[in-house]
């Protein structure tokens, strides 16, 4: 098994702003992923992301420190307006991006055709969860890495990694999609805007907080997502982490307000042949980014050296929230 672990897991780290990118580079990222400041990427939030000029500077800075920059162009181009996404692909490569993270089959084929030498990664938003789907993107678009959807167990990831001839990258820390990524329309069902089309999920513009009969009520558009009693910590009203009524009972039917922490399965992921681990959180602040990158870096170095993963206080990292190992453990299903 140790033969399957030739080197340390690569750390792929988020950067929502140029300042966060510099922090990530100094904290120990091997690669940093970013997006342009528009709807071509799946974290199209106000105040986040990079202009063309900022990307050029960020690439220069990262490369000086031996760190690679990946540009996510991972929403689905709109019919009749594909030009915006084509330009994002062309510009990212012209500005020195080391890889593109793409979700749309047509856009990946465009990138392959126009830039045959470019390194293309398949975004988690492509929802390629089996060897046949991954092979399709490799054959048609030459993708060299797939970011696996958070629907697979560690055992399934091992089998999958053996069955395909591209690298695999998996999420280990941060926000957790409960639904298969790229296959969820809950946000547009309620607000008209979705991750696939607009790069947003449960957008802040549609969020309302109200005091009603001593309860704090959180709503997204017309939908009540939760009600909190006095002293109960109130979370952001992401639809899949709300409290709803089913079978006459109120519960977190889809998922509780938890985030992903898979550090405990890091050794198993390395043994499964995973090449890179990814930290979610381009919307996160610099202090958080720095802390989590140092933590994951230390864990990855321990795994590579055959030492146990150091114990960490994840409550501090996840701002007091609860964590789950998610679908990596079969019992999550």
């Amino acid at each position, binding site marked *: 098994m140790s033969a399957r672990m030739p080197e340390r897991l690569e750390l792929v780290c988020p950067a929502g702003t140029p300042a966060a990118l510099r922090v990530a580079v100094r904290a120990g990222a091997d690669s940093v992923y970013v997006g342009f400041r528009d709807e071509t990427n799946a974290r199209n939030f106000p105040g986040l992301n990079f202009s063309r000029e900022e990307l050029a500077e960020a690439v220069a800075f990262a490369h000086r420190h031996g760190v690679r920059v990946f540009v996510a162009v991972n929403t689905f*181009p*709109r*019919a*009749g307006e*594909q030009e915006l996404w084509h330009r994002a692909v062309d510009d990212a490569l012209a500005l020195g991006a080391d890889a593109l993270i793409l*979700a*749309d*089959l*047509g*856009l990946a*084929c465009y990138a392959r055709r126009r830039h045959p030498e470019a390194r293309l990664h398949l975004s988690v938003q*492509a*929802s*390629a*969860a*089996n*060897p*046949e*789907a991954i*092979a*399709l993107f490799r054959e*048609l678009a030459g993708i060299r890495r797939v970011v696996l*959807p958070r*629907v*697979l167990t560690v055992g399934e990831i091992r*089998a999958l990694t053996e069955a395909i001839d591209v690298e695999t990258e998996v999420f280990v820390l941060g926000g957790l999609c409960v*639904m*298969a990524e*790229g*296959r*969820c*329309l*809950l946000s*547009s*069902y*309620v*607000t*008209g805007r*979705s991750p*696939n*089309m607009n790069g947003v999920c449960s957008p802040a513009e549609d969020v309302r907080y109200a005091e009603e009969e001593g309860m704090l009520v959180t709503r997204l558009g*017309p*939908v*009540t*997502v*939760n*009600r909190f009693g006095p002293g109960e910590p109130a979370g952001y009203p992401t639809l899949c982490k709300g*409290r*709803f*009524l*089913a*079978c006459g009972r*109120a*519960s977190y*039917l*889809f998922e509780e307000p938890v985030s992903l922490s898979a550090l405990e399965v890091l050794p198993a992921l390395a043994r499964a042949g995973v090449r890179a681990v990814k930290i979610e959180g381009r919307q996160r602040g610099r202090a958080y980014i720095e802390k989590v990158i140092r933590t994951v870096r230390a864990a990855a170095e321990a795994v590579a050296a055959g030492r146990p993963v150091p114990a960490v206080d994840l409550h501090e990292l996840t701002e007091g929230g609860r964590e789950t190992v998610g*679908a990596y453990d*079969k019992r*999550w*299903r």
Partner: protein
Amino acid sequence: MSGGARLSLGPVLHYWEPERLRDFYLRIADEAPVEIVHLGEVVCAKRLPFLGGVLAEAAERLRAAGKEVVFSSLALPGEPRDLAVLRDLVDAAEGLVEANDFGAVRLLRGRPHTLGPYLNIYNEGTLSVLREGGAVRFCPPPELPGSAVARLIAGVGIACELQIFGRIPLALSARCYHARSRGRRKDNCQYACGEDADGMAVDTLDGQAFVAVNGIQTLSAGYLELSAAVAAARAAGVGIFRLVPQAVDMVAVAGLYRDLLDDRIAPAELRARLAETAPGVAFLDGYWYGRAGMLRVAG
């Protein structure tokens, strides 16, 4: 006259007992004015061992009744058994297979097939690549507005099938919410989904209808009802209109839409009579108009 517009029946998404499923398809074969019927398990491979025989018999009866049979593939094949199911389907199917994931697309490349609503087809680039691989028609993702559907048809020149009735498929997960609602895990689900023939109602804490759960799938609480958009869709080149089976009288539902396509009734009358067939159900159409999918915009 219908001007060539055809009606299709989508796959049954919910877990119906084998006897119920058999009776349903025999009645569709004999009585429903639909030209195309989709068969197959789209949501959960664990249900298939109980349904295989019924689906084979249904295919035979539907073909004998002159209907085109299309086999729909799983929407989220991730576990090893899912992939085995997918390969068997592709190997064994007589006639067209509807691909609902890109793994199915790869297995079907080079032979005629159709593209289901679970594939992320948002633009001309993707649809062109898929057409070159042998796709003969596509059913757009539910959130795609009518204007984008029209652009895709015009830009790529491929036949389009549009869902106009039934719950809207919204999300898929590795987790089974039916099992979770009963305090179980997916591996020990005891087929809780079989207890809700039309999905498990999920309401907000205010008691507002929100979504319906079908195992690993989340659907809209209300039914999509696009009768008011049919004329525009036909003008844009949509040639097939899909009805997704719900636990209501689907022969009656098909009859109403047949009458609409043949200009025997207007959308307003269809909706009034549909409300009698599916009492208490909200009718949704927001996505078609580029709005939130849970809204009702027309009429």
